[in-house]
């Protein structure tokens, strides 16, 4: 463990895990926390409970803003445990001098997103801090949801099962990078930021047995697959060609030396189902996004690892993203 916290400790990858395990888990240790799922399952499996903070810069980006993100993020963590989002809290930390008009715009977009989820904000807190103490505006939301599909877990993957993505990957990360770096690209790229509960409900209503489900936020699809491979002690075999990536996202990845599967998403999830449920699940997901597809199967070849199979017959590991995502030099 390094002596000071660096940006890399918040990347959703290896360093992030180390920080959480060696400091927070060590002192907060309990059985529920130890499961380290997207949301904690409490009250005999009836409720899901989670929290998330939002510090995105810029606050407004193509396809969304920090408000939409703050509701989607927390509601999606609940939805990923098979829960219907019900009650939320909303805490904001505002930098002195922030525009009230922008604040209201952000709160309005939170409202729109709450309605999609059928959730309400029932408690909140507001703090204003001197200039420079935060970057414009940070939001924390906490949510409680009612579990409608039990037993979803990262440790349930078995040989022969199928893994699907709900849409093309990496759009949020690429959008933020393009907006942040000032690369001045003419692009129609938009974040994928969206509430996932409606899709989860459709899967449950179709009678699909959900083995594992996770939204591919920080660390992207590779972080989800690596975590599943480790938790379930299986090998996840990805067909590289099948991973859906928009042209614009690929272009940004090529320029900066990133991989789309490492980029953050805010409205894209990874789903593991029995082979028998594959076609039905795909049909449900494609009703929302035609780009949804099967990307991987489970085997026992290299337990705990994710393997990427190329169309020319080579294999390589798809590792957990490490460090801060930085553009390649030459």
């Amino acid at each position, binding site marked *: 463990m390094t002596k000071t916290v660096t940006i890399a400790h918040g990347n959703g990858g290896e360093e992030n895990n180390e920080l959480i395990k060696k400091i927070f888990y060590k002192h907060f240790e309990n059985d529920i926390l130890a499961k380290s799922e997207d949301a904690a399952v409490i009250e005999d499996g009836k409720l899901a409970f989670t929290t998330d903070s939002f510090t995105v810069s810029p606050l407004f980006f193509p396809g969304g803003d920090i408000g939409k993100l703050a509701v989607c993020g927390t509601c999606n963590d609940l939805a990923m445990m098979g829960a219907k989002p019900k009650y939320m809290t909303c805490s904001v930390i505002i930098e002195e001098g922030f525009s009230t008009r922008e604040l209201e715009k952000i709160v309005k977009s939170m409202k729109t997103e709450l309605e999609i989820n059928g959730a309400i904000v029932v408690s909140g807190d507001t703090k204003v801090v001197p200039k420079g103490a935060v970057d414009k505006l940070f939001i924390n939301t906490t949510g409680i949801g009612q579990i409608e599909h039990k037993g979803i877990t990262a440790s349930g993957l078995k040989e022969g099962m199928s893994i699907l993505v709900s849409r093309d990957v990496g759009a949020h990360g690429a959008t933020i990078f393009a907006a942040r770096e000032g690369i001045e690209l003419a692009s129609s790229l938009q974040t994928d930021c969206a509430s996932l509960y409606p899709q989860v409900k459709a899967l449950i209503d179709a009678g699909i047995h959900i083995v594992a489900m996770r939204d591919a936020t920080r660390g992207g699809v590779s972080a989800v697959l690596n975590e599943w491979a480790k938790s379930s002690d299986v090998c996840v075999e990805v067909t590289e060609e099948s991973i859906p990536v928009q042209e614009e996202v*690929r*272009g940004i990845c090529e320029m900066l030396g990133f991989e789309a599967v490492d980029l953050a998403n805010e409205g894209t999830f990874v789903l593991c189902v029995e082979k028998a449920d594959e076609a039905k699940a795909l049909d449900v997901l494609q009703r929302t996004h035609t780009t949804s597809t099967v990307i991987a199967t489970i085997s026992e070849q290299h337990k705990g690892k994710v393997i990427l199979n*190329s169309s020319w017959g*080579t294999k390589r*590991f798809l*590792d957990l993203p490490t460090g801060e995502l930085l*553009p*390649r030099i030459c």
Partner: protein
Amino acid sequence: MGLELKHLYDNFRDGDTIKAYAKIIAEDAKKLKKPINIMEVCGGHTHTIMKFGLPQLLPDNVNFIHGPGCPVCIMPKERIDHAYVLSMQPDVILVTLGDMIKVPGSNGSLQDARAKGSDVRFVYSPMECIKIAQENEDKKVIFFAIGFETTTPMTAVLVEQVIKQKISNIFFHINHVTVPEVMVELIDSRDVHVDSYNNQIDAFLGPSHVSVISGSKIYDKFPKDYGRPVVVTGFEPVDAMQGISMIVKQFVEERCEMEVQYKRVVNHDGNLKAQALIEKYFEKMSLFRWRGLGNVPDSGLKLREEYRDYDAEVLYKDVLPIAEIEDHKLCICGDILRGMAKPQECTIFGTACKPTTPIGSCMVSSEGACAAYYKYGNLI
């Protein structure tokens, strides 16, 4: 429909074309009299080769030696310490390119310096320094310049603009290095580790982007004076496979030439305007110390004497450390860069030395050989 970004890479990753080249190479390699070792000089090539799993497609008698062409990897620790110390000086904003931020020096990385409160920024283009300098007129902006021939012209353009626009708060710490000099070092220098001139390099895959600037002429001497063929090659997997195929054919046909695979951009003379700009502002350092390889004559650049007022190394010479810092004694990066060992032969590879806690030069950047082996694994 105009040219889209995808046209620049789509066809060059076509599975069937890659397989077809694998077949040609396998057929030709049967006629080789002895196994050949090809050094891909550039870290970008190492990355392509490992990411796309190309060694899995090659016959046993065609091997890769992973070269020293990663500007972050070869930076000796004392120069990383320079960046760290400069970033800690009062009223300084240290600006550099991407990956450099992660590399640990003896006090930590620039990432650590930033966590301790210093103002470190990474930019995609050095020209962004001008904007930073204008927005922070009371601060000194130091551009910590790194890279091979590919990034040197961008630094030269920045120097020119700083002078033309009379910007008084941008300074430079130059760490630009050149490719041909280190190639000569690798094949023609006494290896201190084994005390011999024994190297295993039979041919070179030359990086195409370097030749976009410097032309293919910089490699003319390798077949002529050193008996090593060079094929200037692009960075997509189809490019790399074609380049390898061209090298194998040279051996089968007993030729020893400089050839260009990446003809769609590279010519013999290169970009003369960029070369003139580099020549105008930079001159060769008599020695530059490469991490893992030691001192290499004429391989580094510095600002010319007349621009010393812009040189942060001159301005801050009283605070910059000068002692050379060696890597851990178990680290075998020197041998790996000379093609005498593979990463997995190192006792600390993947154990003490990992991408998150790199010890040797080949692990520090994603383009180093050890980092590529660690990240993509070896699944043959």
